[in-house]
């Protein structure tokens, strides 16, 4: 399903490459690409394949945004000059995206209104991601030392582990979805995992 056909190579998903993942910015930038890949997959599939791809997209977005809110934004707020304002702008973008995401989450992916709303979300998410890369990540790289970047990467990885975004053909049933839980519960679980990884602060 996530095979790309021609090359026969699977589209990479968060964490499933052999990268050292010792730099939170590199890791989050790759996740931005993973999110974009999943949007592609939702758009180009239909029926159960689309439902499955959308579930994975929702999970990755939830995990990614929660991890950013818990790990990256607090760091930027504390350590970057003007960080308060930069983060406030990012949070507002995230809030809007989450609203759209929640609306989509309650819709059937076959609903005629689904795809137009998904495209709106995609545009917002993409703008948000680039804004982070340009106005927030750049400053984090300048301010954080290698140990700090690695510690933040570890926390993001812990978030990822709470909701795997890999496709599990055959297992991707109602039961698996139920286990992942609704959006809000997933975000809570992710938040707990991140805080634990960050040393319980």
């Amino acid at each position, binding site marked *: 399903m996530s095979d*790309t056909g021609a090359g026969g*190579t699977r589209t*990479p998903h968060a964490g499933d490459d*052999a990268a050292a993942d010792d730099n939170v910015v*590199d890791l989050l930038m790759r996740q931005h690409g993973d999110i974009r890949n999943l*949007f592609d997959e939702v758009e180009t599939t239909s029926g159960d394949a689309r439902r499955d791809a959308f579930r994975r997209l929702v999970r990755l977005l939830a995990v990614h945004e929660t991890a950013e809110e818990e790990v990256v934004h607090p760091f930027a707020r504390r350590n970057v000059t003007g960080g308060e304002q930069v983060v406030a702008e990012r949070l507002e973008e995230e809030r809007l995206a989450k609203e759209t995401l929640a609306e989509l989450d309650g819709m059937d992916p076959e609903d005629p209104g689904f795809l137009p709303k998904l495209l709106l979300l995609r545009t917002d998410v993409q703008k948000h991601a680039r804004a982070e890369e340009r106005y927030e990540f750049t400053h984090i790289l300048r301010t954080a030392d290698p140990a700090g970047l690695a510690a933040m990467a570890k926390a993001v990885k812990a978030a990822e582990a709470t909701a795997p975004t890999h496709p599990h053909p055959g297992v991707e049933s109602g039961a698996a979805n139920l286990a992942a839980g609704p959006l809000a519960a997933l975000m809570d679980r992710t938040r707990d995992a991140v805080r634990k990884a960050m040393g319980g602060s």
Partner: protein
Amino acid sequence: MSFNPLEQRGIPLDRQLRNWRELDVEPVDPDHGDPYTRCRVITMNGIEVEAILFSHQLARHCPDPEVKRQLARTRYIEAQQQKVVNWLLPGVASVLETTIAYEQVAVDLTAWVARMEPDPYLQQAYQFGVLEDFDHLYRYANLYEMIEHRKAEAIVDQLTEVMPGRPTKYHHRDPVDNVRDPYDRTRTDPLSKLHALTIMSTEQQTMNFYMNVGPTYMEPIARRLYQEIGLIEEEHVTHYESLVDPGETWWEQLVNHEYNECYLYHSFMEQESDPKVKAVWELHLNMELEHLHVACDLMRRHDGREPEEVLAPELPPVMTFEPNKAYLRELLATQMDLTTLGAGYVRDAHERFEKLQEAIHGGEAPPSEQVIDEHREMFGREYRLETEGEHPDPAMRQG
């Protein structure tokens, strides 16, 4: 459709200025647009940048203040055209995404020009060059997946294949071997002049782009790869600009530039799938027709010649963005191991080539090799997009 720009009138020059609202164009969609629309945007940006730079050079050699003012008037409009064209690119695209689109332009535009070029010596120059841009696309595509976890096929679609061409490490030649022989302006097909000007302009823009965006990357491998390929783009500009007859007068060159802009805007208007972009091509064509008339008047006045003597009687068939997969595979099978010697081509690594290679590589694998190694370490494979089967050269197939 037969179209002779010399017989058409466009928008009068004093009515071509656009206000901020008119300059504020809506960019193309980075995820759902036609990849060849983006290729046309990148091509026309390169053409407009060359128009501006050429006009500045001409003005610096021009002692007559009235002519300088005339050039400034047209150039200001051309600067607005460049702003509109290049601002069609979306701000959410990353530099690397745009880079891959630049290489798609270099591959499919140069391949098309090579296919259509009537002069065998010039054709060989394009065939030689395209296998290098083809390899650059493959190297950047591997970098793109490493940094952004995205596959280049999300940018080039299935229109252009991505696999090794002539390996980038072999593009570093002694500078004297990059200089070609020019066509003869009195005998060459007018189409050949347009081809040379077009490819020279797009390669020049690619050179300018890489030399400026390369250092904005933080990843060491990205910085180094842009440096290496940026240097090769300089070789390509040397290669293609030397094809143009230096005996053309400044005014003749100006007329050729304006004529080529008419040709390309007309070509792209004919094939554009995006209606908003098509409207830009149409508007700009109508502006260029007038720029051409201004240039023709200058040529008549200063050279005492008629522009018809140097131009085609009508526009050649439209320059087209389309897949060139079979043609490129034929070149991959037959011309991978070529290098240049003087103004010609040889299959052997000659002494001058070896000497430069040794000096520039300093006994290490260059960034273009490292990027593939690092990608393999990260994913256990390389990134390729081989839609028509395995690589035509058995030595380049994946083990």
